[in-house]
C-alpha cells in the first residue's frame, strides 16, 4: 500500500500550498518538463531548500540533482510520455543533507498533473 493515502489522492488536482504543507511527506507538483509548480514544507525541510528557491526551477536537474538519472527522471519522462505515470520505488538522497533512505511515488493524476511524493524509509 502506498504511503500516499487515498484521501490525499482524491484532493490532488486542487491541492494547494497550505494543504500540501499540512502533509507529513514530501509533495512536489511539476509540469511535464519537471519544473516545480508546488513544493511543500516537508520536502523543503528535508532537502534544506527554501520553497521560494524551488519554485519554477527544474526539480530533477536543479532542485534535486540526486534524481537526475534514468532511475528517477527517466521513469518520470517515460511515464509522462506514455500518459500512465504511476510508480513507486526506493531511493537514497545525499545531496547537501544527511544520507536519507526514501520511498518515492511518481504520479500523473486524472487532470494530467504530475506529482513527486517523498517519504522517509526505515531500513
Amino acid at each position, binding site marked *: 500500500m502506498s504511503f500516499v493515502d487515498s484521501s490525499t489522492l482524491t484532493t490532488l488536482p486542487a491541492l494547494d500550498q497550505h494543504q500540501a504543507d499540512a502533509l507529513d511527506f514530501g509533495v512536489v507538483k511539476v509540469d511535464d518538463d519537471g519544473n516545480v509548480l508546488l513544493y511543500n514544507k516537508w520536502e523543503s525541510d528535508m532537502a534544506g531548500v527554501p520553497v521560494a528557491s524551488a519554485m519554477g526551477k527544474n526539480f530533477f*536537474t536543479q532542485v534535486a540533482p540526486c534524481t*537526475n538519472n534514468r532511475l528517477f527522471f527517466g521513469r518520470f519522462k517515460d511515464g509522462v510520455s506514455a500518459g500512465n505515470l504511476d510508480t513507486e520505488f*526506493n531511493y*537514497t538522497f545525499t545531496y547537501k543533507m544527511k544520507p536519507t533512505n526514501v520511498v518515492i511515488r511518481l504520479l500523473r493524476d486524472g487532470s494530467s498533473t504530475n506529482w513527486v511524493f517523498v517519504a522517509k524509509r526505515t*531500513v
Partner: protein
Amino acid sequence: MTSPFPPLAERLKSKLDPQDLDSTARNLLADSFSEPIVEEMSAYATGKGDLVAELVDALGEAGDEEELYRTITDLWLELKFEWARHNQVMNYQLIRKGEADPRVMARGGVCSHVIMALESLLRPRDIAGLTSLVAAPLEHCPSED
C-alpha cells in the same frame, strides 16, 4: 601578522579548513553510520581540506584572484562529478541489490557538504551555469562528428 594571501585565498582556506570538514563529516554521519565508516569519511573530508590547502599554497600568493576563482570552479566541477558518480552507484546498487553500500552513501553525503562550502565562494550565476553543465554534460558536445 598580515597574511600573505589575498582575500579569496583566505576565504577558501577558512571555508574548507580540514578540521572543520572533519567536524562536518562526523556530525553528518555519527548517528547513522558505524564508527569505522565515520572514521573513514573523516579522513576523506580532511583529505579534501588538504587538497584545498595545497591549491591555496600553489596559487594563493600569486595575487591573481581571477585565476584562483577559475580554479575553484574547476574544483567544484571535480567534486560535483564525484558526487554524481556516488549518487549513481548507490542508487543503482539499491535498485539492483536491494541496498546501497553505506560507504558510498556516506561519501556522497560528505562530498556534497564540501561542495556546499565551495559554493559560498562562487557567484550564484556561476553556480547555476555549472549546475547546468553537470546536469547534461553531453549536451555541450558537438552533435555530429
